[in-house]
């Protein structure tokens, strides 16, 4: 695709220092087509990730293989367009989900509730939630922590975990959620931890582990961080800013 009209930049070697799109060359004032299309494909991947849907069937099979019972829930946001424009609706469960959880929660409280939400990239959840949980569950079970049934929330934002965790009477909720896709990371997963989840909490009450994917933070490392945070949260009876302040692992 390279033609004579392209003026190459003689500083390609600087690419060794950054993943930024430097030394692209030019034709006139324009970016050469090869890079234009590379960029467009990256954006296409990010857009497809935003509009991807959770593979409920596949995830259920995978989680059941990990001996984790699964509840399938939905937020108040009816579809992706409503989800994108009404963050308030993505933070609350619909009535059917509340009924499902109320029935499940009345059985007994638990130490940890795991909530899986599509967030802004169901692709991330579809790819990384199960392998991450495989690592994490080993640690949780070794420590003798009790687990609520896992919740899969469609059209869910981080704070939907507060309501789910509260209804399940969990001491801590871990929300696994697809992060906003970047051009180079359409499938980045995040974990948000909240102690004593209840509706109305804000970001200050949470701790976040970000960029979980093979090219970023590995499953094993992420599970280790989450487990450490979880233990500290249970021990100190808190989460959020105060927990983070003393946590050097999570910078």
């Amino acid at each position, binding site marked *: 695709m390279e033609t004579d009209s392209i*003026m190459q*930049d*003689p*500083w390609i070697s*600087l*690419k060794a*220092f*950054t*993943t*930024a*799109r*430097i*030394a*692209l060359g*030019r034709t*006139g*004032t*324009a*970016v050469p087509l090869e*890079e234009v299309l590379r*960029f*467009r494909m*990256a*954006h296409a991947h*990010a*857009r497809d*990730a*935003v509009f991807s849907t959770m593979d409920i069937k596949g995830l259920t099979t995978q989680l059941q293989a990990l001996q984790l019972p699964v509840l399938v829930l939905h937020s108040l946001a009816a579809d992706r367009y409503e989800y*994108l*424009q*009404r*963050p*308030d609706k993505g933070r609350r469960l619909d009535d059917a989900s509340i009924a499902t959880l109320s029935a499940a929660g009345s059985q007994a409280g638990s130490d940890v509730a795991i909530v899986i939400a599509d967030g*802004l990239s169901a692709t991330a959840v579809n790819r990384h939630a199960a392998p991450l949980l495989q690592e994490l569950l080993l640690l949780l079970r070794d420590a003798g922590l009790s687990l609520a049934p896992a919740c899969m929330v469609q059209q869910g934002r981080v704070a939907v975990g507060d309501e789910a965790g509260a209804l399940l009477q969990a001491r801590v909720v871990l929300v696994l959620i697809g992060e*906003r*896709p*970047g*051009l*180079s*990371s359409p499938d980045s997963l995040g974990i948000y931890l909240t102690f004593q989840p209840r509706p109305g909490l804000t970001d200050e009450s949470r701790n976040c582990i970000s960029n979980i994917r093979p090219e970023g933070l590995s499953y094993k490392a992420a599970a280790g961080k989450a487990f450490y945070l979880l233990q500290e949260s249970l021990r100190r009876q808190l989460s959020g800013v105060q927990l983070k302040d003393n946590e050097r692992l999570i*910078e």
Partner: protein
Amino acid sequence: MGYHYTIQSTRYRFDDLKTLLAKASPFRSGDALAGLCAGSYEERVAAQLALADVPLTQFLQEALVPYEEDEVTRLILDTHDAGAFARIRQMTVGEWRDWLLSDEADTSVLQQLAPGITPEMAAAVSKLMRNQDLVSVARKCEVVTRFRNTLGLKGRLAVRLQPNHTTDDPKGIAASIIDGLLYGSGDAVIGINPATDSPAATVTLLQMLDHLRQQFNIPTQSCVLCHVTTALEIMQQAPVDLVFQSIGGTEKTNRSFGVSLSLLQEAYEGALALRRGTIGNNVMYFETGQGSALSANAHAGMDQQTCEARAYAVARHFKPLLVNTVVGFIGPEYLFDGKQIIRAALEDHFCGKLLGLPMGVDVCYTNHAEADQDDMDNLLTLLGVAGCNYIMGVPGADDIMLNYQSTSFHDALYLRRVLGLRPAPEFEQWLQQQGIMDELGRQLPVQASHKLLLEVGNMK
């Protein structure tokens, strides 16, 4: 007092001025999220018709957030220049719109008028204007600021070189800076968004930037966009050219950013005292953006564009070198798509310029917004025509740290080329001396032996 307008048999009533402004606003998702927007197309135009009849003096009588409760309101009313306002004080908002577009309202008239305009007046008139009007009037405004170079002159377009890096690695940042300089960017500022707001990392980056600037004698300024409290903390030990801060249009929004007018004043005086500017004393750099007030639950019932205009009153008080709206960064719950982003950017640029601010725009979008590069090309071109002071320059338009798309060094070259715009004069001369640009503003081929290229290899 209420406002009303009757269309055939329907009488629309608007309880107060802020409600009227909200209902008159062109539709955007953030106002819908706040539950403030008009309930129908007809109600919106009815609100605009009612707004057109409101006397400008009403904005001095009816504070949108009570004077007693909000220091931004107090700033707006206490610093209002009645003398400058005299020229338009008899007008309604609608009459003012027509006057702003007339030939009588030329560059110098608009410059003299600026201190007489409140943000709410500017927001109100913008709601009556089409995009074309926003471009037309903004283009007549000229706001010139100086630190080590001259920004905002007509016929010029500057670029903030934004060389962000995921881990603040100095070599990685330097690589992007060199790339940008060789593409003719960096006259507005070389400004890094740090990945972490640690004072030590900020000092390291500031020293690196200052070293680079001095070594190559670049007539520009640098900035690490840390929190204002961090800048105050390190000011005596690090080369701080500009003090940066994100600001909003209500006291409560600013509190959510961890700032107040008195803190900004302290930082402003501190930066002035450093006397680092060589040809001017504009030492502040502010960023704003529609939706920040609602996001902090601090909008006080005002629509997001009115909140945004009020942020410009905060900025204006500190005579900034640079102000830019980060228009598409906030996400689709505030500005859903390309159409809304473009409209908001033109409003912000217009309101800022009318109020006397050196407005730039971060022409940008996130991956969950209904927008793409074509929307950005449209907006970029419109802003060039509107006389925008500066845009961002990010390698390949992809900010790898903030994870959003802004404009590229190539985009800046495109805009300068198609509209015949030139860099800031001092920087233009430097580009010519460096063999980067010729006297007609064309990019020159850069040799591998260029001394800027040897710099990164030599870095520790």
